[in-house]
């Protein structure tokens, strides 16, 4: 079906769940008023990114009042938002929650937790163990959180699981100022979103945050990418924004006719070869 998506490019406050929920509520209201059926927030939108020892303090269990509030808000619009989720055995996950029709309908726990260079996620967070596509009123969706998207197998699995729209929640730090027009991180992501869309004939909805934490900027530039890999809407750089875009079912249909890569993709060949590699590595 055709629908309108809103990418809420917000500036979360570090460790302030109540303030960030208020920001999210305001963006939800704006998205509803603008006629969106789905609103996407960045990774860790409810908490901020460089949490370190704050992780346990800002974590939400799935029956927390904040989650109940988001369920209520989702009576008017589907919402995808990032937070720290605590499980009943006290593991903390970098999670993305999908709400619609007053219910929490899907949870994706970030699998690839970057722990190198400026990143330290695996020190504080537990790793998710699955990539699963799921059905929604917008068709079949798959969720990725930031670094997940840099592992080609992740969107591959989601696309093979039938996802035709990939939602990527991000907190991408700005770095790499050179003579180029764009930041290194911006141009890398722009290549990635476009290429991922093309490889899998999927729409990519990418929401990145803005603001600064301890001198690190987050560059924004949220995007709606068509299944052909062209950018149909892009948010401002470094500033809050609410990016609105109309998504047309026909565009997906036509691209899948022009370029039936996913139809031709051989699950059995891939599986067979992966199993062989796994066997040989075990020797």
């Amino acid at each position: 079906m055709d629908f309108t998506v809103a990418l809420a490019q917000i500036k979360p406050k570090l460790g302030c769940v109540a303030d960030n929920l208020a920001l999210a509520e305001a963006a939800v209201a704006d998205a509803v008023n603008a006629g969106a059926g789905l609103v996407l927030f960045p990774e860790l939108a409810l908490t901020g990114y460089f949490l370190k020892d704050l992780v346990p303090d800002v974590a939400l269990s799935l029956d927390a009042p904040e989650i109940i509030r988001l369920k209520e808000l989702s009576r008017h619009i589907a919402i995808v938002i990032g937070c720290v989720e605590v499980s009943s055995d006290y593991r903390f996950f970098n999670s993305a929650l999908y709400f619609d029709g007053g219910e929490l309908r899907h949870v994706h726990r970030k699998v690839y937790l970057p722990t190198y260079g400026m990143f330290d996620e695996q020190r504080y967070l537990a790793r998710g163990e699955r990539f699963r596509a799921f059905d929604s009123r917008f068709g079949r969706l798959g969720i990725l959180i930031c670094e997940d998207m840099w592992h080609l197998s992740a969107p591959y699995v989601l696309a093979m699981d039938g996802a035709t729209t990939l939602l990527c929640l991000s907190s991408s730090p700005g770095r790499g100022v050179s003579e180029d027009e764009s930041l290194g991180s911006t141009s890398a992501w722009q290549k990635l979103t476009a290429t991922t869309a093309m490889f899998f004939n999927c729409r990519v909805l990418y929401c990145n945050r803005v603001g600064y934490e301890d001198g690190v900027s987050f560059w924004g530039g949220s995007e709606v990418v068509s299944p052909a890999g062209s950018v149909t809407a892009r948010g401002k750089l470094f500033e809050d924004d609410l990016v609105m875009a109309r998504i047309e079912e026909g565009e997906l249909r036509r691209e899948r006719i022009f370029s039936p890569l996913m139809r031709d993709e051989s699950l059995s060949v891939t599986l067979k070869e992966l199993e062989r590699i796994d066997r040989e590595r075990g020797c």
Partner: protein
Amino acid sequence: MLMGSLGMNTTLMRTILVGFIREEVRKVGLTRAVLGLSGGIDSALVAFLAAEALGPENVQAIIMPYRTSNPESEAHARLAAEQLGIRHDVIEITSMVDAYFARYPDADNMRRGNKMARERMTILYDHSAAWSALVLGTSNKTELLLGYGTLYGDMASALNPIGDIYKSQVWQLSEAMGVPRVIIDKKPSADLWAGQTDEQELGFTYREVDELLYHLIDLRYSRDELLAKGFAAEFIDKIQAKVQNSHFKRRLPVIAKVSNRTIDRDFRYSRDWGK
């Protein structure tokens, strides 16, 4: 050797650094910044960035000459402040510094230079409290990596917008922002004594060392790769030693660990905690 690798998109750099000052100042509930203006390019550039970020009315420059400072330095500091329309005050530090060294007449240039830098720091922090303004740092990446600065002196600040850009990049950004030509063109000097220039004291030019540091630090070239790139062995070793030996200046004081949760080791929070 080329300069290409240190070239940059000055528009983008300006956007990020101006945004940094604006957001990091406002985030702590303040609107103002204070900085020491020496007459040199680093502090002039920071003043330009701050005036753009906060508005000239919210930036205060303090010019703090010592009796041996080159009078041209004060003139250049005034020139930059007047071009920006920021408030600027001259507070001479001679009486404070000389009062102290009356006890130690034989103190060498290094002790005197450090004392001057720390005297200036106390004045900036007093103004920080008096005017509810954050102190902006003006040390660039080259100086910070070489340890060419005074710990708790000019290296002290609340926010440093230029600490991740090399001196060669400071020149480029200063040109783009319209820092007065005379400040860009003059030889860099700590101005602690007459005739001192950084490059003479260091024994190499900023362009040479920036190119080496960029390959060594940013690109993580190995020693062999640096040699193959044409850097002299002695130069590489000398700079590597400077970076290593000055590392203490870039860290907080070392705390003896006895508890289960020691500040910074296993008690870790971002400074922007709750902001």
